[in-house]
């Protein structure tokens, strides 16, 4: 397991860290063995949590319930992965949860804007109708 982790880890960080440093890190991790805990993807988890809160404030529970519950499920799965110390997968799930939550917010926004439009149409229609009825009345 330790070895498997070490083979995956450099691929994720390859963009930012130089090859010698990676080699050094791999060596360090190999020496530390199972005692080494990979970093928890805190930023992704926080971002997902915030995105879900934001979606909840946007009434997503009402207008985009499917997307919102998908986001919650993925965030829960991400936390499970953290507990299992599968941090790469945890980060992926957290990022997916965030994308779900952002989609929930956007769809809630569309739904609300359309509902507002419908209400405007309805009230304008009522007003015009009333006006015509009043105009038809003798008084």
């Amino acid at each position, binding site marked *: 397991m330790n070895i498997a982790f070490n083979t995956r880890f450099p691929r994720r960080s390859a963009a930012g860290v130089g090859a010698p440093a990676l080699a050094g890190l791999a060596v360090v991790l190999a020496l530390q063995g199972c005692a080494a805990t990979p970093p928890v993807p805190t930023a992704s988890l926080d971002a997902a949590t915030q995105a879900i809160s934001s979606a909840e404030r946007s009434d997503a529970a009402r207008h985009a319930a499917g997307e919102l519950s998908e986001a919650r499920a993925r965030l829960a799965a991400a936390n499970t992965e953290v507990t299992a110390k599968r941090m790469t997968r945890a980060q992926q799930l957290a990022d997916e949860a965030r994308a779900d939550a952002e989609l929930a917010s*956007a769809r809630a926004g569309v739904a609300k804007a359309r509902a507002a439009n419908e209400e405007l149409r309805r009230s304008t229609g009522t007003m015009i109708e009333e006006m015509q009825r009043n105009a038809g009345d003798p008084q």
Partner: protein
Amino acid sequence: MNISLTNIKGAAPLAVAAAVSALVAGCASAPRVAPAAEAVRVRLTALQSDPQLAGKADAAIQDAEAAVRTAEMPQGDKVLTAHRVYLADRKVESARALAEMRVAEEQQTQLANQRERARLDARTREADAAAERARMAQAEGEVQRRAADAARDEAGAARLQTDQLEQQASRMRQQISDLEAEVTERGIVVTVGDMLFTSGKANLQQGTTGNLDKLVTFLGEHPQRMVRIEGHTDSAGTAESNHLLSLRRAESVKSYLVGNGVGVDRVTTAGLGEDVPVADNSTSIGRQMNRRVEVIINHEPSSASN
């Protein structure tokens, strides 16, 4: 496939190896795009080429574009590929939703404008209707006011007429009182006493015509009234002479009236002698009362109904 090729073209191993390596390289480079990302790309392209939505969420669409490109990059990790495709899919959907929201918000502005126009329209009509009602109420008020004015005028006229009639009646009463006349069924009777006449004569004495002058004035004010003058005597002397004397005295009064402007055709005379006494002829007071001329002014034909 590789194996079958080797079997067929065993004669040229190098050429085959080159062909195989080229083929393998070709095969490796051909699916540059991860197959799972294709569907997402299709939906992103549809969004980008939608004339209604394309320009509405530029940043989100660029974000989606980047995510789709990342998802399209081929690599061996299936979980990572699925993850990237998932992210790309969510971002494309989010971009579409944002663009749709912008469109809806723009519509909202239009709808709000329409509603405002309708509201103004309604208020204008309401104001017009109110003005019309006010105008009609005013017109109605005008009609009522005119009716009231007319009624008041009529009442005023009636009161004026009543006043005039009352004044006339009052004046008439005063004149009758001045004439010392008596209102009877025959008419207004003015009795001219015998002191106007010299005993046995028919001539009127000078300076004693005050009562007759009032009569002249009265007849001048009431030109439609006819006058009958009756002469009466006491029982002294013969009936025939008394009859004659009474007629002459009546004629005398007539002459005075006509001489003072009363139309001759309004006046008739009669001599009744001693036939219609008003008192006892056995006393001198009674006889004096019987010697008289009565001027009877007939009631106005119209005054009978008043």
